[in-house]
């Protein structure tokens, strides 16, 4: 009996790339598949820089993502983020709401720079007091100013008002008119002082460095109808005192203000009678712990006006001053 012999189909090998979608592998017409080799889907890496809007990371066509790198920045810390703002879970603590910037001010003599004080400005790019570069040198305080423990009350009077204030000034840290305590030197040259503490009698300014220029100007200015106090005592403990720092202290009260300067004060800056730190102060006498005027006390340092200087008593201890002015 004769029969037909079935002819075997030729075989083929097929190579495919897996890709990202389902594939059907079929033999070519008239062929049989001997073997299918599947090559892996090509992968890729991508990187992302965070931005203000969400970003989608997708692979290119026919590829898979093997790794996505999200950029980081060491500056993304609370201190660099504005207070109240949350960036990727970092809650900011940077507070410069007053817009004030602190500058160091130096005199320049024969190329030698001498630090004479600190100036506060609301302009971060211009010299705050219009000083002439060359005569003065300015340097922005790099660190964000921080006011530390600048005020502490004690000794309230019977009227419930504070009679004694100790104000600690961190040099380079005066940044705002917090509580109206500091004289700001800003673009409009507006001035602030303590106007509300009418019964304040004892006042101490503490500073490890130089008390900034105009920082306490018009402190305790007289307010008509509110002259509750009889004697106001100001003690200054610092390395230096800037121009006009206490301008107008106790102005209008007459002879009832007393000023004592610690021997730690090595610099009292002024260039004229009209920028003396005590210009226009309502006092008669300045009491100094030093035995004589240090070299850093500039001429006119104790001027009231062009035509008047304050009597100055040297070698006065703090305890003697306290006991005699209480």
């Amino acid at each position, binding site marked *: 009996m004769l029969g037909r012999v079935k002819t075997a189909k030729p075989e083929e090998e097929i190579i495919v790339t897996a890709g990202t979608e389902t594939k059907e592998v079929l033999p070519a017409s008239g062929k049989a598949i001997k073997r299918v080799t599947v090559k892996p889907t090509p992968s890729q890496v991508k990187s992302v820089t965070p931005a203000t809007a969400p970003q989608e990371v997708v692979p290119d066509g026919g590829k898979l993502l093997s790794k996505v790198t999200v950029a980081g920045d060491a500056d993304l810390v609370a201190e660099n983020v504005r207070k109240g703002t949350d960036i990727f879970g970092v809650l900011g603590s940077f507070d410069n709401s007053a817009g004030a910037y602190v500058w160091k001010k130096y005199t320049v003599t024969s190329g030698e720079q001498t630090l004479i004080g600190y100036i506060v400005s609301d302009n971060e790019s211009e010299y705050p007091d219009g000083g002439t570069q060359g005569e003065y040198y300015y340097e922005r305080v790099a660190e964000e100013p921080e006011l530390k423990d600048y005020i502490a009350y004690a000794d309230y009077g019977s009227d419930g008002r504070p009679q004694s204030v100790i104000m600690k000034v961190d040099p380079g840290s005066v940044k705002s008119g917090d509580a109206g305590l500091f004289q700001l030197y800003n673009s409009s040259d507006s001035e602030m002082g303590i106007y509300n503490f009418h019964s304040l009698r004892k006042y101490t300014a503490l500073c490890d460095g130089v008390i900034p220029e105009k920082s306490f100007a018009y402190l305790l200015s007289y307010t008509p109808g509110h002259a509750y106090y009889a004697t106001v005592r100001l003690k200054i403990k610092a390395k230096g005192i800037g121009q006009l720092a206490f301008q107008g202290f106790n102005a209008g009260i007459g002879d009832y203000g007393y000023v004592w300067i610690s021997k730690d004060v090595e610099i009292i800056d002024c260039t004229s009678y009209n920028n003396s730190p005590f210009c226009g102060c309502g006092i008669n006498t300045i009491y100094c712990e030093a035995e004589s005027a240090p070299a850093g006390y500039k001429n006119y340092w104790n001027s009231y006006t062009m*035509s008047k200087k304050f*009597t100055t*008593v040297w*070698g*006065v201890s703090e305890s003697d001053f306290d006991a005699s002015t209480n």
Partner: protein
Amino acid sequence: MIISYTKILEQKYDENMQLVGEPEEVVITHLKADEGKRIKQKSTGITGTAVDVAPPDTVENYEEVDDTNYTGA
């Protein structure tokens, strides 16, 4: 007590900061206490080792006292 003087010229200004007249001579009187003494400001009782007395203040407002009882140092 050692007393010395410094004369300085001071220009008077009016309320409008205009120069008034010629510069006037102002005398600052320097008082220096002797050893074992202090200078007392009579009005306050505050004592020091030296005083620069500027007008209208006068030397009559100060006196030299023994520092025997001085404990402020």
